[in-house]
């Protein structure tokens, strides 16, 4: 078997359990909340519209935004809890709506008979309306189940293990095998869950009239088995596992996957057990380290300077690095172990032939032609301080400003669909695609020195600190770019890149 595929399949049990637990817990809570809400809404017309509008609005908020908001509301907590809260919010709409529809579409004659023979409102609900609405309610639960399986992949972004680990890591490190394994696994789980709930639906629709038939008994057995197996697996994954000594965090791009892998490998060499929480958003990761859910990660000085300290000036590399270190220690109780040595700056870059054709060396050279050029940035660049600072320092703007995922951005400039991109200095693809970086002679772009951070509690462990301190100032721009290139351009695994960095650190 293909080595890469084998490596991915080894991860399957862990990701499967994580994904299943997320889905089943969220779905169970979603049902437990939504059905009573739906019943309540049909009893109280004043509540119905606001409720249905609210659950619909939740549905229209992009799921990534819901996750980020839930993390913020929970005070920066990452992991299972915010993921489940977000998934529960998301699966409410189909269940609430179908409960209301199911309860309201009972034939009026049946309701008149129920009243006429002397059932109380409560008996009408439990003996007539709910049983008759059940198939419609279960249809809503089926929809919710499929949505939840799909959305649970996003839980990776807030540090809960799911099939999303395959997908996000795979997308960032151009590992299509991982992306495929993750997508297929999620699809299989969705189909399986849908079949089990479909089985329950069939049983409720055919109960008693088929109660004695072989087919009914077999279906009931299969459904029961599915339910028991699903919940046992989910419960098993929630059993307290021996918790790791340290948790390493990382953001969702190749360099961060490699660095997290490096920190984890170094700590494991020193005899510690380590968990990794990868693909987290910048703010989520910072908060998680401040509150101790993550013990170490690599941050960039300019990110803290602009995102956290809200500074807009650029006083130079040394000042920013020192101020950022002081800030996170004083404000959030974290510890800066030290810089790793390389910088990961934003830089403008063009195809070498295009730059020569236009005679461009520095950003000043761009000014006469900028308004005829198409620029591309990653998803956040044109909203960042770097771009605003560039724009204002040079008074520059482009004919068009497009945003891409990094992988597609490099493909776009290679195929001449755009004229220049905002890349990173450590990105291996700049060399691989033979792009020319354009010099920022007026120092408009903030410095981005890599900083190794740790949580306050982890910093009290001397062995942890000495292990990680050994990395300070050991990774040059060139070494980091080469490590990134191995993964992004050569398609090698993250662990190969980690091994490469280790060979640089300890020649």
């Amino acid at each position, binding site marked *: 078997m293909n080595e890469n595929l084998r490596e991915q399949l080894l991860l399957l049990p862990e990701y499967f359990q994580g994904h299943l637990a997320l889905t089943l817990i969220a779905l169970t809570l979603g049902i437990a909340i939504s059905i009573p809400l739906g019943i309540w809404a049909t009893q109280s017309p004043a509540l119905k519209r606001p409720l249905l509008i609210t659950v619909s609005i939740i549905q229209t908020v992009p799921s990534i935004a819901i996750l980020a908001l839930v993390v913020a509301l929970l005070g920066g907590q990452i992991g299972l809890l915010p993921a489940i809260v977000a998934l529960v919010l998301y699966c409410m709409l189909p269940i609430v709506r179908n409960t209301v529809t199911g309860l309201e579409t009972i*034939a009026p004659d049946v309701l*008149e008979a129920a009243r006429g*023979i002397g*059932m109380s409102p409560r008996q009408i609900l439990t003996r007539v309306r709910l*049983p008759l609405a059940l198939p419609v309610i279960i249809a809503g639960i089926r929809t919710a189940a499929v949505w939840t399986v799909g959305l649970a992949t996003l839980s990776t972004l807030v540090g809960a293990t799911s099939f999303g680990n395959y997908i996000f890591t795979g997308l960032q490190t151009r590992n299509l095998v991982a992306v495929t394994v993750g997508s297929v696994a999620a699809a299989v789980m969705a189909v399986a869950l849908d079949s089990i709930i479909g089985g329950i639906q069939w049983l409720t629709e055919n109960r008693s009239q088929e109660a004695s038939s072989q087919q009914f008994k077999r279906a009931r057995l299969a459904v029961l088995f599915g339910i028991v197996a699903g919940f046992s697996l989910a419960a098993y994954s929630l059993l307290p596992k021996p918790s790791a000594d340290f948790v390493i965090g990382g953001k969702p791009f190749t360099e961060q996957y490699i660095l997290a892998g490096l920190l984890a490998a170094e700590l494991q060499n020193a005899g510690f057990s380590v968990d990794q929480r990868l693909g987290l958003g910048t703010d989520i990761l910072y908060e998680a380290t401040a509150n101790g859910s993550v013990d170490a990660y690599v941050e960039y000085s300019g990110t803290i300077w602009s995102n956290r300290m809200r500074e807009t000036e650029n006083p130079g590399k040394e000042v920013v690095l020192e101020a950022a270190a002081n800030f996170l220690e004083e404000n959030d109780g974290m510890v800066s172990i030290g810089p790793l040595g390389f910088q990961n700056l934003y830089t403008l870059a063009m195809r070498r032939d295009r730059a020569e054709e236009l005679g461009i060396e520095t950003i000043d050279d761009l000014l006469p032609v900028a308004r005829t050029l198409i620029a591309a940035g990653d998803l956040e660049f044109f909203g960042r301080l770097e771009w605003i600072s560039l724009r204002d320092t040079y008074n520059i703007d482009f004919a068009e400003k497009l945003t891409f995922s990094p992988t597609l951005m490099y493909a776009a400039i290679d195929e001449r669909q755009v004229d220049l991109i905002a890349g990173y200095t450590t990105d291996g693809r700049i060399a691989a695609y033979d792009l020319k970086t354009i010099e920022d002679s007026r120092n408009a772009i903030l410095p981005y020195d890599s900083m190794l951070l740790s949580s306050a509690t982890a910093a009290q462990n001397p062995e942890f600190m000495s292990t990680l301190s050994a990395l300070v100032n050991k990774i040059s721009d060139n070494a980091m770019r080469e490590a990134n290139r191995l993964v992004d351009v050569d398609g090698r695994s993250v662990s190969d890149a980690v091994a490469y960095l280790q060979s640089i650190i300890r020649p």
Partner: protein
Amino acid sequence: MIELQNVQKSFDGGMSYAVAEISFKVERGELLGLIGESGSGKTTTLKMINRLEEPNQGQILVNGRNVQDRNPEQLRRNIGYIFQGIGLFPHYSVAQNVAAVPTLLGWDPDRILSRCRDTLELVGLDYADYAERRPDQLSGGQQQRIGVARALAAEPEIMLMDEPFGALDPITRAELQEEFKRIQKNLDLTVIMVTHDMTEALLMADRIAVMKDGEVLQIGTPSELLNNPTHEYVKKLVEMPRRRAEHLERLMHSS
């Protein structure tokens, strides 16, 4: 025994009256036909007796007790209710439908079972054949037989019927009318039956109350109505069945 005393009902706070101050009495074992066109207030009158509607004024006595003093659900469990829509519970078997009221009343299972058998037999259905069937597997006539059985199951003394046979084909309707009349006599049931079909009222009722615009115009035996209509409207109502009966008689004698 059912007695209405000055009963009034308005659905629009007194702007108009669906039922305008009516009074009448139905004796034990009597079948009263309540006839009138749509909007005459006959169904509203019926529904006030088992408190599916509440009167604005006046009082209703069932077996001498004011219905307002009784819990509405308890009251309804002791009064059989049959209506055109039938409203069998689609998720229940025939047996469960028939057992609905005894179950609500908390009878013990053996008594419910034997009562189900008896009641189904009473309406002409074989228990073994029908007990486990679903309502959607039955014809309209069979469904209304179950509807009648459900209403009879808890041995009520009083039955309220709202156009019970209106949706059935003519032959089935005639069969059920005759059978119900027989059951009513045998069980000595006190019945109010709403209908807009004068022929049905003339054939089944001991007395008939004619309603128009919320008022009772005339109340009397079928022959009183046929021979001494006190209102032009009552006269018109009995005219059609009379002319048809005479026509049929001529046809039979001519052959």
